[in-house]
């Protein structure tokens, strides 16, 4: 009996499911950054708003990268349904804390897929995700560096303005 599945798709079905879940996660991250951009924009944190708009676009790029990969491998990429996006934040610092924990969740999820791909000898998927592992280290570092600014400069009005301008310059 022919292995029709293998002839049609070069990755494992389990990897495809996990990558589809990752597409959903990246899509949600993009929408979440957009909500953060809106919050910053409305409160005059223009630097942070620009930063968040750029982050939203970047997450969408990540999503599309995985989406295309799944289809290129013969899989069935699923366009994500995004709901329950949080638009409420109590401070600029909370926005960045949320962003950092979101990035940590994405990193953990990528790691889980890599671990599963290794276990299933799905080396194409593992190889594809190497770029994301490096990217996630950078993303986490960026957010952590911004949160350090709050420790260094304080959380008062003028400090927030200076932090926001610094983020804009980065």
């Amino acid at each position: 009996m022919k292995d029709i599945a293998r002839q049609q798709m070069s990755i494992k079905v389990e990897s495809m499911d996990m990558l589809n879940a990752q597409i959903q996660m990246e899509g949600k991250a993009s929408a979440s950054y957009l909500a953060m951009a809106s919050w910053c924009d409305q409160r005059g944190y223009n630097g942070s708003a620009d930063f968040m708009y750029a982050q939203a676009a970047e997450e969408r790029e990540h999503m599309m990268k995985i989406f295309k990969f799944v289809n290129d491998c013969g899989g069935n990429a699923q366009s994500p349904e995004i709901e329950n996006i949080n638009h409420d934040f109590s401070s600029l610092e909370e926005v960045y804390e949320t962003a950092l924990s979101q990035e940590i969740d994405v990193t953990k999820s990528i790691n889980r897929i890599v671990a599963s791909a290794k276990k299933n000898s799905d080396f194409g998927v593992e190889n594809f995700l190497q770029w994301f592992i490096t990217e996630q280290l950078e993303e986490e570092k960026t957010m952590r560096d911004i949160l350090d600014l709050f420790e260094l400069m304080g959380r008062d009005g003028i400090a927030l303005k200076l932090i926001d301008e610094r983020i804009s310059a980065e």
Partner: protein
Amino acid sequence: MERIYSTQYYTFFQSDKERCFYIDLGQKVVRLSFCQLLALRQKVWSINIENHFDDDFNPHGLEILSLCNKEHLFVLNTLEVLDLKELLTGSLFLLDIAAQTPSLTA
């Protein structure tokens, strides 16, 4: 055409010659390419069977399933949905393409 797996209502076949699959759904036999099989799997996995037992969500316990780019349309009752889930679970396992229920639906 080789029979892969049968359940109470349905039978799953593979055709090596045509490089595709067939499902005998009782009312008719449906031909599926591999990518159409993946799409069916996604649809069937995402059916929330608990809603079939909740009068508010699904008072009649029916599911409308369109297959192969809306070429076919089926109306299934709860038992038929469960049977179809079993058919796919067994068939995909025997074809060695079984995987956990997609986390997308979680």
